[in-house]
């Protein structure tokens, strides 16, 4: 039956392989993840176990590892959000998180702030070291909806494996939930937890 989705996570630093593996298994029955270091190997295996998948791994040539995650027949993935764990070292144990709490950058002049946030997100998009997770709340959620000036950049980040969490309460408050165009509707539990475990938290 199932096609195998192959995720090439070589050259990526943790937790990126875990994030990519998680995204892949959410939409595929079977996922093969290729990584190039022990930490990523362990972290992806741990993710698979947590998600209740069958996990197997083998060593490939050239120092690569191949991990196969298979969803157990008939068993849905846990609906509860499994945190993306990444314990390579004590220093950088959490994800790199960017929080957009407003649809502008900085305070003082709104027109200018709207320009700055566009320039900021464009630059983040081109940057080699991308955030693991981006969180949008309060007026920040307006950046993620149809017609947003930064939609293309956010979609590109999302496609590159950046997890985008958008505050559901905020979408609801502004009555724009049906216009959400990138990322997933999230809640304060995930938002607070993600912010708490971040190794780096950046707010433009």
């Amino acid at each position, binding site marked *: 039956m199932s096609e195998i989705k192959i995720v090439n996570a070589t050259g990526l630093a943790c937790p990126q392989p875990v994030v990519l593996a998680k995204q892949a298994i959410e939409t595929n029955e079977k996922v093969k993840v290729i990584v190039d270091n022990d930490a990523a190997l362990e972290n992806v295996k741990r993710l698979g176990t947590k998600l209740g998948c069958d996990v197997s791994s083998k060593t490939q040539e050239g120092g690569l590892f191949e991990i196969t995650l298979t969803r157990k027949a008939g068993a849905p993935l846990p609906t509860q959000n499994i945190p993306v764990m990444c314990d390579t070292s004590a220093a950088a144990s959490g994800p790199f998180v960017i929080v957009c709490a407003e649809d502008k950058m900085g305070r003082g002049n709104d027109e200018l702030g709207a*320009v700055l946030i566009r320039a900021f997100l464009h*630059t983040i998009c081109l940057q080699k070291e991308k955030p693991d997770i981006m969180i949008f709340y309060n007026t920040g959620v307006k950046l993620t909806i149809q017609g947003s000036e930064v939609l293309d950049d956010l979609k590109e980040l999302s496609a590159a494996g950046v997890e985008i969490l958008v505050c559901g309460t905020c979408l609801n408050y502004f009555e724009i939930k049906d216009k959400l165009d990138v990322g997933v509707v999230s809640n304060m539990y995930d938002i607070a937890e993600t912010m708490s475990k971040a190794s780096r938290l950046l707010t433009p």
Partner: protein
Amino acid sequence: MSEPTSYYVMLYKSVSYALKAEKILKTEGIPHKLIPVPKQISSDCGICLRFESGFQDKIKAALAGKVEVEEIRLLTNG
């Protein structure tokens, strides 16, 4: 990646010119993107408009007499 390799950027004397130009291009429906002035051009924190080469004439025509353009430059890689 998904981006074409070469673009032009249009530079202005001030941020407000860039915003004015953007408003005009939006109204005219000409594709463009507002980006920070690339580092290799200037280290100032400025903004400029980026566009693909095919739109150059259209953009020039749309802005003629309305916005003072300082410079148009060919840009490679981003």
